[in-house]
């Protein structure tokens, strides 16, 4: 554990200015991931820039487009229980409430959630090699303990999964990530924000060091009628997903008009398969069609031993979650044995 300096900033500009001064500076928001990584001697910030006083990043507002803007500093709890989020985007509330614990959600922020790091055991064990932590040192997970690890979009260099629940719903809802940096603002489509491990597993996402996430935008789309988030894990609560599925759907004359299916716990980023979604559009929302789509989604899946079970589990989870999405009123977030 190293020592560091600490500074509070009040505005986005000031935050960007401060971070640009030092490659080894880090923002701190809720602190629930960064402080943990620092205590494990895995993060070594020279200076912490506390962004919690940047008031412009603390609001949830309806946009002129009818979409919803979620400030990066709004806590995961306040987002999940927000009146508009829970009525217009209930899938997001469900996914957030399936993650972590009430105490952690009270501190954790929307921006920080996107940037949480993998829970790969070897990444956390600083005595072991790990391409993500120490590029070029190897990936012991591939031939080691890999029960938690990825089955889709893996690379020779890293088979870690991105552990967020919230982000799986954001991927299904086609959110946009709003970012500010020294060269101004930019918007990143949610599915382009996180990366596959490829040849640079040390990079989890496409945010630059000197950029700040200012917020998220949810498009003006209604998925409040048919939606479901299913999280399968080793215990009923307070555990990371082995496999999770977010489904958002609209029906027209009992046919699927639009469907989005995003998977968690299976890849280095929230996983969407546009081909499978297109296949379902115009079809009846039934078990047979969902099974066919699920098989398309896992077509390229590859197990590494301990995690082979995730392939079959994903098919079942996708089908079950899409069926549950037809009856969202029967779901109770977290408080259902099957969740």
């Amino acid at each position: 554990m190293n020592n560091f300096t600490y500074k509070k900033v009040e505005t986005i500009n000031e935050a960007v200015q401060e971070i640009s001064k030092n490659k080894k500076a880090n923002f701190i928001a809720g602190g629930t991931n960064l402080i943990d990584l620092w205590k494990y001697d895995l993060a070594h910030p020279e200076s912490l820039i506390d962004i919690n006083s940047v008031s412009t990043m603390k609001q949830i507002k309806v946009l002129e487009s009818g979409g919803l803007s979620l400030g990066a500093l709004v806590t995961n709890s306040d987002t999940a229980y927000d009146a508009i989020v829970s009525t217009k985007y209930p899938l997001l509330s469900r996914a957030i409430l399936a993650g972590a614990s009430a105490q952690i959600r009270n501190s954790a922020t929307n921006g920080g959630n996107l940037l949480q790091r993998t829970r790969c055991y070897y990444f956390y064990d600083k005595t072991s090699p790990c391409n993500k932590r120490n590029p070029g040192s190897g990936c012991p997970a591939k031939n080691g303990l890999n029960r938690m690890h990825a089955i889709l979009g893996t690379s020779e260099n890293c088979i870690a999964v991105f552990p967020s629940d919230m982000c799986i719903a954001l991927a299904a809802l086609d959110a946009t990530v709003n970012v500010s940096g020294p060269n101004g603002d930019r918007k990143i489509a949610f599915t382009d924000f996180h990366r596959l491990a490829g040849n640079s597993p040390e990079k989890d996402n496409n945010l630059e060091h000197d950029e700040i996430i200012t917020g998220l935008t949810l498009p003006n789309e209604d998925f409040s009628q048919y939606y479901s988030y299913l999280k399968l894990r080793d215990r009923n609560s307070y555990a990371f997903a082995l496999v999770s599925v977010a489904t958002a759907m609209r029906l027209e004359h009992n046919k699927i008009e639009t469907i989005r299916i995003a998977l968690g716990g299976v890849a280095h980023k929230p996983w969407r398969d546009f081909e499978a979604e297109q296949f379902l559009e115009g079809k009846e929302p039934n078990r047979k069609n969902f099974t066919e789509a699920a098989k398309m989604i896992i077509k390229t899946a590859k197990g590494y031993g301990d995690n082979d079970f995730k392939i079959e589990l994903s098919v079942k989870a996708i089908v079950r979650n899409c069926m549950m999405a037809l009856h969202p009123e029967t779901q109770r977030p977290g408080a259902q044995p099957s969740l």
Partner: protein
Amino acid sequence: MEKENQNNQIHHYDESNTSVVNLTINGNLKQLKVQPWVSLLDAIRDHSNLTGTKKGCDHGQCGACTVLCDGKRILSCLSLAVMKDGSEITTIEGIATDGDLHPLQTAFIEHDAFQCGYCTPGQICSAIGMLQEGKAHTREEVKEQMSGNLCRCGANTNIIDAIMEVKEKTL
């Protein structure tokens, strides 16, 4: 880098890199001189001599360090004291009034809701926060909302009984 920062007077620390953090803990204003890496938990236990709040894992996994910060339950092990400057903190030492136990304390005793007692301060602070949030209605929901507090002695059934009793009384 650090030197340059100090010249620009960006930091408000003295030479030893400490800053004064104002925390109102259980109604008493404390001015603590702490370094930026001191967790809120260590500020409470080691710098304020309030050892009711427990350190279980120090990594966010057990809930023993739960306190109320501006009325909300948080994990003090995953917060830095400097980040909470100006906040009001309530710990287990601050919930009894004029010598009368808080109803949850009484209910924990009546329901035999602890064995070793190590998780208890966190359980009770967490339960106070949960009741104030008002999101849990059924027993199942209370269990879910209390899942961030582990009990290695396995007193969970009695813990939930105690909380349910207080919840029903205060409704």
